[in-house]
């Protein structure tokens, strides 16, 4: 009997050694430099992070006209803000925002791979790439959202966006109640990556993080 899903005991150590060997050989052969990989990672640690998306959403919450522009022409609206250089760079060339409203909840998925708006949210978390999530969210998003703790009444229309083309989609969540008077910076703190993909809601402070 063949075990189809067995893993070697040294699964992680073997991969770690393999990737280090690969990087070392690519440096030796002149494909990349000794700093290339660190510089790529640094870019995603310091500049292309979910903070950009949080700031975009917070601005949309305090400025309804900006919110409308963001949905109508996302790249142009994003370029109005003082964000790091590169918002239209790799995996942000064609950003597209959809907005949650009373009675409408949007979820972004990628059933073929893992398309994700890097400049807005950084790199995709593991759940987004989970084959079970990708299979189920297409067909039964309401069931999935309930499992993930997102309350939805029957009258709320759930719209699923499958990222199969050139756009990189994200969700503008609804501003939570009880946040009147908060500053834009404070509001930005309420926005999570999960809320900007539609698998969570933005919550007021003290109202739970889901």
């Amino acid at each position, binding site marked *: 009997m063949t075990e189809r899903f067995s893993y070697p005991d040294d699964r992680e150590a073997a991969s770690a050694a393999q990737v280090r*060997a690969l990087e070392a050989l690519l440096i030796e052969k002149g494909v990349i430099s000794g700093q290339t990989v660190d510089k*790529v990672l640094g870019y995603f640690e310091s500049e292309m992070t979910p903070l950009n998306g949080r700031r975009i959403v917070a601005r949309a919450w305090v400025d309804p006209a900006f919110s409308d522009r963001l949905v109508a022409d996302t790249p142009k609206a994003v370029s109005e803000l003082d964000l790091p250089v590169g918002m239209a760079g790799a995996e942000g060339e064609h950003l597209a925002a959809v907005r949650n409203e009373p009675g409408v909840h949007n979820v972004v998925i990628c059933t073929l791979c893992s398309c994700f708006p890097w400049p807005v949210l950084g790199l995709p978390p593991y759940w987004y790439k989970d084959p079970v999530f990708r299979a189920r969210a297409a067909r039964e998003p309401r069931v999935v959202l309930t499992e993930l703790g997102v309350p939805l009444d029957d009258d709320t229309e759930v719209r699923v966006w499958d990222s199969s083309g050139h756009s990189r989609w994200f969700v503008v969540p609804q501003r939570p109640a009880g946040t009147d008077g908060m500053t834009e910076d404070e509001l930005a703190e309420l926005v999570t990556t999960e809320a900007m993909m539609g698998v969570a809601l933005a919550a007021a402070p003290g109202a739970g993080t889901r």
Partner: protein
Amino acid sequence: MKLQHHLGGLEGLEGPIDFERRVFVEDWEKRIFGIHTAMMGLSASLRDALPGYDIDSVPTTFDSTWTWADLRTGAEAMDPFDYFRLRYYEKWLGGISAFLVEQGYVDRDEFAAATARYRADPDAPLPGRAEPAIDAQVQRYLREGDSPRRGPATPDFAVGDTVVVADPPAADHTRLPGYLRGRRGTVERVFEGNYAYFHSTGEDGLGDPVPVYVVRFDPHELWGASAEAHAGPLYAELYQSYLTPGPEARR
């Protein structure tokens, strides 16, 4: 027919979703992400990119095309059991390693020896060769990207048109989610401009610049009796190559 093309809507995967919020779950995963992204930033295909990268002046020995299409083609070619068995970046590591060996950048035996060396001494340092011009090109690619937009839109369909999704032969690589094949939808949005794809997908139909649409699908059209209660619409972004006129538009 490939399972990886038909993951969306696949039934039977009723288990809980792994709601892991981390981007990387092992440190080594960061390194293969960095290698992949550097290869995209040095890809020979960027010669034709809109930002006008001077790829030929970059002092790298890399002279191959490496794009998302190449990475995705590898993932779609995998044994479906392995596709489910392996974590996301394990698939990347396998696909990228195979490509670099096949293209001759890395010798198979040399690779095995270096892997054994780092297995025995995981903290052994990496070579320290500096080459700022390589890093500058990769950084520039990250900031300026590789937009596929080419030329004005030449749409055959308009907002509100009914379309039926084509059912081309299964190719090595596709951007057509399997669950949409043969389904009827309504054009919701026509994007400005035409959009190319990284490389031709053959009979599948991508490559040359074509219009792209957002098409809205009724969940009952897609899933029939398997649609969930109170199901809402599904929107997919589809290249014109994947669309045919709806029944009322046919002669």
